[in-house]
């Protein structure tokens, strides 16, 4: 049996009459990059939100590393090793990039009921934070306020913050959303470098990026996982071609 770090069973989530997650089963194996693809409105973000704890499923279970986390509060999940990035960039706009990542480092460094030492002077926070910024290629912009960063740079920051949590499973909700081709290429390289080190569940529309990165794919349509397999198997799957890949210009 495969070594599953994430095991989602019979997950249900409805918004009124709309089943955004419909009897969904999904297993992410330790070490893999597992891509989650599907048309707009398929329920990808809704799934990520349930995995991150922001939405409570109506039914079903989420097991992370052998532990049932279905009802665990959001803020406890990063401490188990489950971190996420947001499809719509969600960072601390009045802080610098370095402050943002240092905040993530701080989150992992025990409680923050420390009232006297200047946090911005703590090397234990700033040095690792700088490393993560370098890793995503944002080192040169460390001291710039986030409100002055370009969209693509904020996407990089989003990733650096998630990395700084040193997750064992990283949930990435369209990390390349809104990026230009060059930026996307850079982001793919950054993620490639992380492959093998961190297990990832990657939501992405950019098929080139998906096929460049993913070990396995799950295709989501109307809240249901209609297929899971290797990129080649998915490409050849007739259901998938009909439901999804066919729309992409019949390539």
């Amino acid at each position, binding site marked *: 049996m495969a070594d599953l770090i994430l095991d989602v069973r019979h997950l249900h989530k409805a918004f009124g009459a709309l089943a955004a997650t419909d009897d969904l089963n999904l297993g992410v194996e330790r070490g893999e990059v597992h891509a989650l693809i599907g048309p707009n409105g398929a329920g990808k973000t809704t799934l990520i939100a349930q995995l991150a704890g922001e939405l409570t499923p109506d039914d079903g279970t989420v097991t992370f590393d052998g532990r049932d986390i279905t009802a665990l509060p959001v803020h406890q999940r990063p401490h188990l090793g489950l*971190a996420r990035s947001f499809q719509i960039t969600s960072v601390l706009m009045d802080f610098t990039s370095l402050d943002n990542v240092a*905040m993530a480092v701080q989150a992992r460094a025990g409680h923050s009921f420390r*009232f006297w030492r200047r946090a*911005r002077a703590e090397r234990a926070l700033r040095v690792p934070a700088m490393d993560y910024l370098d890793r995503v290629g944002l080192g040169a912009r460390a001291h710039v306020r986030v409100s002055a960063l370009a969209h693509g740079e904020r996407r990089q920051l989003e990733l650096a913050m998630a990395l700084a949590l040193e997750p064992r499973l990283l949930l990435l909700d369209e990390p390349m959303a809104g990026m230009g081709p060059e930026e996307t290429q850079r982001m793919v390289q950054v993620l490639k470098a992380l492959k093998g080190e961190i297990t990832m569940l990657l939501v992405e529309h950019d098929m080139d990026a998906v096929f460049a990165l993913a070990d396995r794919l799950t295709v989501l349509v109307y809240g249901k996982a209609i297929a899971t397999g290797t990129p080649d198997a998915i490409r050849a799957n007739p259901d998938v071609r009909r439901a999804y890949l066919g729309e992409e210009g019949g390539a």
Partner: protein
Amino acid sequence: MADHSHRMGAITRKTAVLAFGFVLLAALPGIAHLMDEPFLVSTFSRVLIYAMAAVSLDLILGYGGMVSFGHAAFFGVGAYVVGILAHHAAEGTTVLGLAGTNLAVVSWAAAVLVSAGVAAVIGALSLRTDGVHFIMITLAFAQMLFFLFVSLEPYGGDDGLMMMGRNDLFGIDLSDDMTFYYLCFIALMAFLLLTRRLVDSRFGMVIRGCKQNERRMRALGFPVYRYKLTAFVIAGAGAGLAGALSANHTEFVSPDFLHWTMSGDIMIIVILGGIGTLYGPVVGAVVFLMLEEFLPLAFDSVGLEGLKEHWRFLFGPILILVVLFARRGLFGLLAGREARDG
């Protein structure tokens, strides 16, 4: 950016403004003496006390993003603790099995603890809501306490409670206005140092993060409720100490200390001085209370006695101008771009 300016240690516009303000307040009794206006010393004691209450509100409002509209509750509770203990000391009676006291150390510590306790209860309930609900619920709690004290006949009800002189601080004569002024000065400076360190600490970064994006802070793994509640309690304690000083200043406490207009005044002081600047509220307190003192006199002298009671009519437009044209308040006008900590 912040890292650079601190590392350089250069004299910036902000440090110059702060140094000037510090010297001005430190020398105020001397200045008042030279101007032959000795009453200014007492007036400015009040300024410093209000400044302390406003700084404590800025801590949660400007740094934590918690728009508390009931800050007078903690100010008033602190004042009442001092008044009630003094009352029982004078009567030789007990309250909740405890003897009254005129000892500042005991009385003020009690004021801080009780205010913090009240803030813990109010905060624990209010912080489960946010936005407009949070504003309304903090206001409602403060008004509840206001009516509680109005109905407390043993402590004067509506009329309030007179104190027979100020508390006893290690035998220092606090009835001397200059001595009392310097006590308030030291207390405010100590409180500013404390809050300065606090907002720059790990704890401070967390509440500032919550103000910007609570959802993200949660996703990073911070139990935001706990941090916000702690900040709320610290702010309540600070306001309680200001209240204790205020009771000593006026030698009198009344439900007016907790009235919603008092909460409004504290908030106006913060907005006028500059939200999220820590020092701005001190500037705000100086300007607000000076206007309160002198605008009525000004109306009087130009023959507009009818407006005397309504000095706020003129104050309103001033506040609107400040809010519109100085987004970091008066302190922002003085200190420039680095006024706000963000």
